[in-house]
Structure formats: structure tokens, C-alpha cells
């Protein structure tokens, strides 16, 4: 029973890691770039939602407030790509890594200046309430997190597999020059994907915030989400989600049954083991580079 309880909480936490990881994978799948500011985008989205929803701030109803935050964050993501990231178009991958790390710090500073560094709570209509199923207590926020994550993953998968835009994004990442030649507006596409990733980050942020207080440093969660994305194999949407869930489940179990300190290390140990044994993740799309 205890294990089941831990398992469900772990899956819900893992879904949040998975959602942040989905943000990475979106950008990586479409632009071959890695956005190290994804965790901070999540944080910023959560704070935007808080600014719109909380009664002390603007006091909008919950759903419209969150949607508005997602839209604004989508704009922020689009703007970041349009103004800064596009300048690095065609430059080595690593400069984008450093650039996005710096961007993350800027986002954290902006959020801290506007909303302060003390933890605050997002007012949601569902947090704090729970459901009892045969001895296992499940919080509403856990159920909503799992449901929303599932739906979002399906939507994003459909976006990449079915829509014109998604196919164009895949084409642009597989071979940029060829995509240009067949008329894909690669740069604009990249900006749109960044916007989309910002919106996904906002939803992850809201789900995270409904489980507890938030402060500008929660963006560091992005590192764990990275581990999730790597375990799943960068570039695979279901892989990212499953990687996130794996981490989310292992963490509380390790905290409960293993000596202290192991739990904090566990995501990274799993990741290193995966990197060493299956360098391309569990859901590999990469084959060895041939010379």
C-alpha cells in the first residue's frame, strides 16, 4: 500500500519532469538546438499564471488566467528566438547552450525582481483536495497532472506526425538546407517552435505550482528534466515522458528505502548509466556516426 502511494505521487511528479523534458525535446526535434533555459521558462510561466490568477494580483478565473499565461509565454518564447537565438543561426551548437544558460539567469532575475524571492503559492481550485481509493489517497492535483500530461503528449505527437507545420519542423531539423530548398521558412518555424515550447513550459509550471509553493529558483528542476530527456533519448516525445516518470518514481522510492543522499543522486546516476550503456537513450533514434 505504501509502495502504491509512493508510486502514484512519483508518477505525478514524473509527469512534470516529463513535461519540461517535452519542452526540450520539442526544440531539439525541430531545431537541433538544446534550450538550457527550459526550466526557467517553466518557472516564468508559473509566475505569469500566478500573476494573472492570484487574488492579490489580477484575480482572473483559473482557466482563462492559465490560458492567458500560456499565450503570453508563447509570445515570450517566440520573442526570445526572434530577438536573440536567431542571431546564432548557423553557429556551433555549444554557443546556443551557453546562450540559453545565460537567458535562464536573466529570466530568473526578471521573475525575482517582479515577484520577489520568497516562495509563493498559486491559488488553484483543486489543490488540497483528495480522493481515497481503497486506502490509497490521491490528490486531485496528481490526477489532473497525469491527465493533462497524457493529453498534451498525444497532442504534441499528433502535431509532429500529422500537421504540415510539424512535418516541416522535422524536415528542418533533419536537413536544414534541403528544407530551405523545398520552401520551408526555417527561421520562422524555429520561432514558432520556441513559442510552442514556452506554452508547454507554462502548463508544466502551473502543474508544478499546484503541488506546492514556487520561487524563482525552481528552474533548477530543468536539470532533472534534462536527465529525463536523455534517458528517453533526446528527440523522442514518448521517451521524454517515460524518462520523466522513471525518475519521478525512482526518487521517492530511493528516498524511502535507501540511505540518505542516494535519492538526490538517483536521476543522474540512472542517466549516466543509460548514457554509458545505451548512449542514445532508451528510445534511440540515433545510429552511430559513420565516417
Amino acid at each position, binding site marked *: 500500500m505504501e509502495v502504491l502511494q509512493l508510486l502514484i505521487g512519483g508518477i505525478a511528479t514524473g509527469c512534470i519532469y516529463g513535461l519540461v523534458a517535452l519542452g526540450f525535446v520539442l526544440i531539439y526535434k525541430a531545431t537541433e538546438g538544446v534550450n538550457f533555459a527550459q526550466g526557467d521558462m517553466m518557472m516564468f510561466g508559473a509566475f505569469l499564471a500566478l500573476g494573472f490568477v492570484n487574488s492579490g494580483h489580477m484575480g482572473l478565473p483559473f482557466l482563462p488566467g492559465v490560458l492567458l499565461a500560456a499565450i503570453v509565454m508563447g509570445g515570450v518564447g517566440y520573442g526570445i528566438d526572434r530577438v536573440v537565438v536567431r542571431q546564432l543561426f548557423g553557429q556551433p551548437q555549444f554557443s546556443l547552450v551557453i546562450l540559453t544558460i545565460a537567458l535562464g539567469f*536573466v529570466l530568473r532575475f526578471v521573475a525575482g525582481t517582479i515577484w520577489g524571492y520568497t516562495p509563493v503559492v498559486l491559488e488553484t481550485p483543486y489543490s488540497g483536495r483528495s480522493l481515497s481509493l481503497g486506502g490509497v489517497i490521491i490528490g486531485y492535483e496528481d490526477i489532473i497532472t497525469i491527465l493533462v500530461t497524457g493529453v498534451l503528449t498525444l497532442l504534441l505527437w499528433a502535431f509532429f506526425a500529422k500537421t504540415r507545420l510539424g512535418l516541416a519542423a522535422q524536415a528542418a531539423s533533419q536537413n536544414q538546407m534541403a528544407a530551405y530548398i523545398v520552401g520551408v521558412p526555417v527561421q520562422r518555424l524555429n520561432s514558432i517552435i520556441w513559442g510552442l515550447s514556452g506554452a508547454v513550459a507554462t502548463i508544466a509550471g502551473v502543474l508544478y505550482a499546484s503541488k506546492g509553493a514556487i520561487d524563482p529558483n525552481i528552474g533548477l528542476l530543468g536539470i532533472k528534466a534534462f536527465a529525463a530527456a536523455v534517458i528517453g533519448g*533526446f528527440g523522442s516525445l514518448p521517451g521524454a515522458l517515460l524518462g520523466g516518470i522513471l525518475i519521478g518514481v525512482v526518487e521517492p522510492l530511493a528516498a524511502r528505502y535507501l540511505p540518505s543522499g542516494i535519492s538526490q*543522486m538517483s536521476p543522474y546516476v540512472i542517466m549516466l548509466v543509460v548514457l554509458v550503456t545505451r548512449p542514445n537513450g532508451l528510445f534511440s533514434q540515433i545510429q552511430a556516426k559513420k565516417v
Partner: protein
Amino acid sequence: MRFVFKTSYDRDIDLHKDGWSRARIALLVVIFALLPFAVGDYYLAEAANTLIWALAGMGLMILVGHTGLPSLGHAAFLAIGAYTDAALMNAGLPFLVSFPLAGLAAGVFGAIVAIPAVRMSGIYLAIATLALFVIVEEMVIILEPITGGVGGIFAPSIEIAGIGFDRYANLANFYWLVLAIVVAVTWCYANLLRSPTGRSFLAVRDSEVSARALGINVTATRALSFGLSAGVTGLAGGLMGHFIGFFNYEAFSIFISINLLLVVTIGGLGFIQGAFFGAILITAVPQLLAILRDGLGGWGVDISAIPGLDTAIFSLILIGFIVYEPAGLYGRYLKIKAYFTLFPLARRDMFRRNKTYVKTERMR
């Protein structure tokens, strides 16, 4: 333009192009050595700090600048160096033994980690080093008997042959010690770069395929570079421990890793000089901010009320450099120098960056 008449083949690979360039370096070292007589204790401590950062920057430069491998976790090696050095000295070993051992420990650890790590390509390696950093940070907390855990550890003052090198009591001596170590490492580094090993680092950075074709063992070269880099960073960590005096795991946070990246990127990737330029910038900006704070305070503007301002300013500087001057401060210096030596023949496009179209490494 100066031309050098070469009378032996050795001149081709000499460290310095001519006596003039050798004299300039010597002059620089002399100026640095005379610094304790010219400035007060506060600025001398800052100078020592800058030198330590430059040493750590050189450590990362070997890896990022000269071998082209990214690392987001070099604070881990700083921590290993600092803790090894402090723990060995607390166990009664003299500095002259514990300090090289600290570098060795970090280097061996780096090389062992590198063997699986360097098989990964860019992004994966960056993430793996990040994970490595988190693991080392947790290990520091777990290994409480050695590291003092959350409480921290005290780095004893250095004494060599009866002369004190304490950071507070004999600051000038400490400064000279740091300077001597930095000069020695810089000299070794510069020589490394003209040896076959150093050349193979550059070859691996510029083209893995052609390096392999020329018979270089790419994995071994990368692992060696990783180990050397970790070792030098470990040395810097040992000195940093003595500089801080009393530290715990928080002294080597993820922000230190980022700051180190900032040092090499802003200074200029691929130049030893870049590490020094970057270190000067990273230690000078907080000072300038403090001066600015006092100055603006007189005008009724209080910027100390904004927490995290210096991190934000660092980040903005970093973004500016990546977007507008990826070659860093030293690269800019070289461009200005080229403009004047070639005057009036310099053209705008001489330093144009190459753009490449991205192709995925997935689904090939």
C-alpha cells in the same frame, strides 16, 4: 610588420616569435611580482583571486577551447581539488605534497570519468558533466568524515620551510605563491600546445574525422585532455580553498561552473590569454558594481535593493559576447591589432564567421 630571420628549425616552434615578445611576457611577470609593493591588502587579495580564477579558467580552456569538448560541471573538479588538499593538510601532510596530490586526484577522477563520457557528442557530454557535478556535490555531503559535510571544512594555513604563506597573515607571500603556480602552469600549458599532444587536441577540435584519418586516437586524446583539464582545475580548487579559508559544498555551486564557462567564453575560446582576460572581467565586475553602488547611493539611487543584479549583469554580458563577439575579449584584441598592423588594408569581412546548415545526427 616585423619579419624574423630564422636560422634553425627550432625557431619555427618556439614559444615566442622574437625577443621582443619574450621581453613583454617577462615584463608582465615582473610587474605582477612587484604588485604587493604597489597596492594595498584589499586589492592584493583581489589580484590573488583573479590569478586563481585564471588558473581554473586555463583548466577549462584546455577542454573547451583547445579540445572543443563542452563541460558544465567543472566546479566538481574545483571541489575535488579543494577538499583533497584541505583534507590531506588536516591529516598532517605538508602543502608541497598535498597540493600536487589534489591536482592528481582531480585529474585521475576526470580521466576515469572521461573514458565513457568522451564517446558522447557535444550536447550529451555537456549534460553528462552537469550530472557529474550534481553527483559530486551530493558525494561531498555524504562523505562527511572527510569533507565535513554540510558544516564545511577548514583549509589550514600553508607553511613551506618555515615561511608562512597564510592568506591573511602573510598575504604578499600567498600572492607570490599563487603567482608562481600560475606562471608555472601557464608555461607548461603554452609548451603543451606546441607538443604533439597539444597539436592532437587542436586536430580533434577542428575535425574529428581528419584527426582520426591522421592516426590520432580520438578517444584517448579526449580522455587525456579531460584529465589534464580536471587536474589543472583541481589545482585551482586547492588554491581557492586556501583563499576562502573555510568552505562547504555551497562554495562550489553550479554557478561557479557557469562562471568558469563565462571566463573562457568571454575571455576568448582557444587562447591562453583568454583565460586571463575572462578572469579579470569576472573578478572586476563585482568590484565595479560595488563602486557604482556607492556612487549611485550619493545620487539617491539604491541598486543594492535589487538582489541578484550582478548575476543578471554577467548573463547580459555573456549574451552580448556570444551574439556579437564569439571570439571573446582576446579575439577582439586580435582583430583590433590586425586592423592596425594591416592599416589601411583591413577589410570588414576578414573575420567573418562561417555559417553551417544543421543536419540531424538522428535517423541517419
